[in-house]
């Protein structure tokens, strides 16, 4: 008679096969989500007022995209790859004369009196045709954000020896320690204050 000592052992030999099966299932169903993009704040819907916001013409950098994807920046026909440079030059101009309240100490631009007074005053306005391709629009938005980021990086390097984009990414990362976050918040806010992002898509009336 066969001797029975306890339960017979279960063979674990097929464990690897089962695990492989599950692994392949998850490999196939996984889609690593692409959740990154350009953040933008839309202007709030305001009740119509008689008082119109008046912005000086020289403080507006008008970018228009037509339906075939051509670009008009401040009245000049330019190529997409020139846009970043043009926008940077406009933002960094600091045209207000020294001594006035708008004077920009950290600007390294040409200080051309016919261009923007200071980064705080400078507004970039984007207009697009209804037929413009979304891809082109995103390229333009990307270049404009790039122009801001370049300037912010420059100031951030000067003040904190660190790139602004890197600091901001660390600040927004939910895994960052709260104490580090607090410290970064101040720095990020300061740099953002030096070059506030003013990308407008609303109609702005102008005067000279």
């Amino acid at each position, binding site marked *: 008679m066969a001797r029975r000592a306890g339960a017979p052992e279960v063979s674990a030999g097929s464990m690897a096969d089962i695990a492989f099966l599950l692994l392949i299932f998850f490999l196939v*169903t996984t*889609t690593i989500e692409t959740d990154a*993009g350009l953040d933008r704040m839309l202007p709030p819907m305001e009740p119509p007022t008689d008082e119109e916001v008046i912005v000086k013409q020289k403080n507006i950098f008008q970018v228009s995209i037509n339906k075939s994807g051509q670009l008009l920046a401040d009245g000049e026909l330019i190529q997409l790859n020139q846009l970043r440079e043009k926008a940077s030059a406009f933002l960094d101009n600091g045209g207000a004369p020294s001594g006035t309240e708008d004077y920009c100490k950290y600007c390294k631009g040409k200080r051309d009196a016919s261009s923007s007074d200071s980064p705080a005053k400078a507004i970039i306005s984007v207009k697009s045709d209804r037929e413009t391709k979304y891809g082109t629009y995103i390229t333009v938005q990307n270049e404009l954000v790039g122009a801001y980021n370049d300037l912010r990086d420059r100031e951030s390097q000067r003040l904190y020896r660190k790139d602004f984009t890197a600091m901001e990414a660390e600040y927004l990362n939910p895994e960052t320690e709260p104490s580090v976050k607090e410290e970064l918040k101040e720095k990020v806010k300061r740099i953002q204050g030096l070059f506030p992002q003013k990308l407008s898509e609303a109609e702005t009336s102008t005067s000279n």
Partner: protein
Amino acid sequence: MSKFAKKKDGEVPAVSTASLPDIVFMLLFFFMTVTVMKDSSVKVANELPQANEIKKLEKKDRVITIYVGAPTKEFAKTYGTEPKIQLNDKFANASDVGDYILMERAKKSQDLQNVLTTSLKVDKNANMGLIADIKLELRKVNALKVNYTTYEGDAFKN
């Protein structure tokens, strides 16, 4: 003298596969944790444009997604080939966007309702007219934080 006797040559010892299940399980758990099950199927062509100055969208529970693009082949017969808006699982008009946002917002908990972001997943071949309409609707319901969701890459390839 037999201390250093030569071992039997020729046979290579078999590699032990005992740790194979462990390795596979490790991979399995990795994929199980990173997997996100789709809650709605995308019925429109959705090749996002590329950009490189992007920010990550953290915290999925604070995001409302709107898809825009030309209907895929199986829906092209009924809905045509012009880009359409997809909300949840249905095709919709621009005028429905506001209601959809309000509905989605009402579903979220009170403390999240003010920090919601609208993620626009728009096909790169869609045109701006439709986007302008959506933006107007979003402004009407005061959903001002938008994210133009893109792939990471060279923006000049769009």
